[in-house]
C-alpha cells in the first residue's frame, strides 16, 4: 500500500501517460482505419490493392518490430519528433489495420438490398452512405471496436518499455528507489485493469444504447 501512497504523483503521471497514449492512438487508428476501410470497399482497383496490402502487412507485423522501426528508424531520415508522437504513430497505424477489418465486415453485414432500395428511391451516394449504410454498420461494429481498443490500451505497455512516459515504465524508477517490486507491479496491474475495464464499460453502454442483435 505504501508504494502507491508515497509515489502517487509518479503513478498518476504514468497512468495519465497511458490514457493519453490510448486516446490519441485510438483517434488516429479510427480515422486511418475508416480511410483504409473505404479504400478496401472502393470500386477502384488500385485503392483496393493499397488497402489490402496495408491491412495484410500491418496485421502480420509484430508490434515490437514496428516500434523498433518507427522509434529508432524514422530519426535516421532526419525526422525528429518527441518519442510520444512516434509511439502514437506506431500504435495508431498498427491498430488501424484491425479497425479497418472490423469496419469492412461491418459494412458487409448491411444487406445489398438496402443500398439498392436507397438508390432506387433516388438517393445520392452520400445519402445512401450517411442515412442507410453507416447507421446500420455502426450498430454491428460496436463490440469488435471495443475489443480492438482494449487491445490497443494493453499494447501501449510496449511504448513504456521503449521509455515513453507510461504506466509500465514507472516500475523502473520505483525499483531504483528500493520499493517492494511485487507491490509495484500489483498497482501497475490495477492501473491497467481500471483502463481496460472502463473501455469495456463504455462500450457496454454504447452497445446497450445502439447495438442491435442480428
Amino acid at each position, binding site marked *: 500500500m505504501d508504494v502507491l501512497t508515497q509515489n502517487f504523483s509518479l503513478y498518476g503521471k504514468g497512468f495519465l501517460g497511458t490514457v493519453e497514449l490510448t486516446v490519441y492512438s485510438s483517434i488516429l487508428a479510427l480515422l486511418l482505419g475508416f480511410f483504409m476501410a473505404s479504400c478496401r470497399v472502393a470500386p477502384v482497383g*488500385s485503392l483496393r490493392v493499397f488497402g489490402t496490402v496495408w491491412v495484410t502487412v500491418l496485421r*502480420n507485423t*509484430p508490434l515490437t518490430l514496428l516500434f523498433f522501426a518507427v522509434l529508432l528508424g524514422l530519426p535516421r531520415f532526419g525526422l525528429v519528433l518527441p518519442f510520444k508522437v512516434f509511439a502514437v504513430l506506431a500504435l495508431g497505424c498498427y491498430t488501424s489495420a484491425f479497425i479497418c477489418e472490423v469496419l469492412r465486415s461491418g459494412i458487409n453485414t448491411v444487406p445489398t438490398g438496402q443500398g439498392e432500395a436507397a438508390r432506387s428511391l433516388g438517393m445520392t451516394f452520400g445519402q445512401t452512405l450517411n442515412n442507410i449504410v453507416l447507421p446500420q454498420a455502426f450498430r454491428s461494429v460496436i463490440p469488435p471496436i*471495443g475489443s480492438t481498443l482494449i487491445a490497443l490500451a*494493453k499494447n501501449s505497455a510496449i511504448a513504456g518499455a521503449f521509455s515513453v512516459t507510461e504506466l509500465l515504465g514507472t516500475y523502473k524508477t520505483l525499483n531504483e528507489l528500493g520499493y517492494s517490486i*511485487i507491490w509495484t507491479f500489483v498497482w501497475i496491474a490495477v492501473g491497467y485493469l481500471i483502463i481496460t475495464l472502463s473501455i469495456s464499460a463504455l462500450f457496454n453502454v454504447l452497445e446497450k444504447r445502439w447495438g442491435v442483435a442480428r
Partner: protein
Amino acid sequence: MTTHTAPSPTALYDIPGPVTRKRHRLYGFVSTVLILALVGWVIHLLFDTEQFTSAKWTPFEYKGIQELLLRGLGNTLKAFAYAAVLSLVLGAVLAVGRLSDHRVVRWVSTLLVEFFRAMPVLVMIFFIFVALKVQPLPALVTGLTLYNGSVLAEVFRTGINSVERGQREAAYALGMRKTQVTTFVLAPQAVRAMLPTIISQLVVALKDTSLGYLITYEEFLHAGKLIASNLDYDLPFIPVVMVISPIYIGMCMLLSWFATWVAKRERRNPKTKAVEVAPAEPGTLLPGVQ
C-alpha cells in the same frame, strides 16, 4: 455478355455504367500515380540518406553476422514452439475447468482466464522477469503461455458450446459419462471447428515472441539491434530493418494463410456438419460482451 464474371452490386455501389466506368478508370489512374509517387518518395528518401552504401550492406556477407541472425531466428522459433505447446495445454486445462460441474473449479478458472486476458502480456512478462528474477526465455514463455492459454481456453469453450445440442444429448442417451461425451463427441468436433481461430491465436503468440527483445532475450530483433548499433558498419539500422521485417512478417503471413486455408478446408469437411467453422481471426473477444 455472360462470358466474363459480371460484377455484383454491393450495398454501397451499383454496377457501374459506361460513364461511371470511365470515371472509375480516371480515379484508378490518379490513385495509382499518387501511390507510386509515395513509394518513389520513400525510395528517394532511402537513397538520399545513403542507406544503400556498400559499407552498410557488406556486414550481411560476413559469416559471423549471418550466424548471429540465424541464431536469433532459432531462438525466436524456440520460444514460439515452447509457448505454442504450453499455451495449448494450459488452454485445454482452463477450458475443462470452466466447463466443470464443480462450482469452485469453475470460479477459479474463470477468474484466472479473465485476469490473464485483461492484463497486458508485457506487464506479466516484466513481472516474471523483474520481480521473480527468472531467466529471459522462461519469463517470455511463461508470459506468452498465460495470456494465449487463457485466450485459447475461451476459444475451446466456445467451440465445445457451439456443437449442436443434439450431439451431446445423443451421446448421453447412449449412456456415455460426461468425460466420454466431451472427449469422444464434443472435443473432436470443437477442435475442428476452432482450428482456424487456434492457428490465428498462434500467430499472435509468434508476433509476441518479439517482446523478448524488451527483456534482453537474444531473439531475432535483438540480433538485429546488435548489428544495427555497430559503428564499424556505419550504423546500418535501416538495412537491418529491411532484412529483418520481411522475414518476421513473412513467417506470420505464412501462418495466417495456413489458418485461412484450414478454415476453407474444414468448411467443406463433412465432419463439421454439426458445428459452425469459425473464421480465421484471433479470438480476442471483449470481456463481458458476447
